[in-house]
């Protein structure tokens, strides 16, 4: 999430509120991605018969590949959004993804 970090200068003492807010946003974003990855890979890899409580070999291998692919998708989509965002900023348009 390095694109979240701006260039704001931090004072040497006390608490920089902007820095904290950014860190909390980053934390929440990573957690949100992780939770969605858990849900997506669960529906892709885990059988719902629940005959036993352990992951079998096929499920374990599937999870590893699923995490790698999900991570790749995150990068590809991020690049796409950044290139569009840059284009919008250059043209002066606001983006238009949300109603506000």
């Amino acid at each position: 999430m390095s694109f979240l970090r701006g260039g704001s200068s931090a004072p040497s003492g006390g608490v920089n509120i902007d820095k904290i807010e950014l860190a909390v946003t980053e934390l929440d974003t990573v957690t949100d991605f992780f939770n969605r990855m858990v849900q997506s890979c669960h529906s892709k890899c885990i059988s719902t018969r629940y005959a036993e409580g352990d992951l079998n070999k096929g499920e374990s291998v599937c999870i590893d590949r699923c995490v790698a692919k999900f991570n790749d998708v995150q990068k590809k989509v991020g690049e796409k959004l950044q290139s569009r965002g840059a284009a919008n900023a250059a043209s002066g348009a606001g983006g238009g993804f949300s109603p506000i």
Partner: protein
Amino acid sequence: MDFSNFNGAEQAHMTKVIEKRQMQDFLRLYSNLVEKCFNTCCNDFTSKALSSKEETCIMNCTEKFIKHSERVGARFAEQNAENMNQGGS
């Protein structure tokens, strides 16, 4: 949204809130896109690399979802403007 009866301090406060919400909206759009396009496009886990077919699907899914959101946003804004004119506060 009509903030015309807000004083300067209140408008400044709302501007900060709106900026924060726009950041959150963007991040939610991002993670929604990843989840939705991954779920639709990735169905083969015999390899850990994205196939070129999957990658094309992801790019089209992202592009299309953004255009979809923009179109919904444009229509939504028109509806809201109409609703206002029909005499809602």
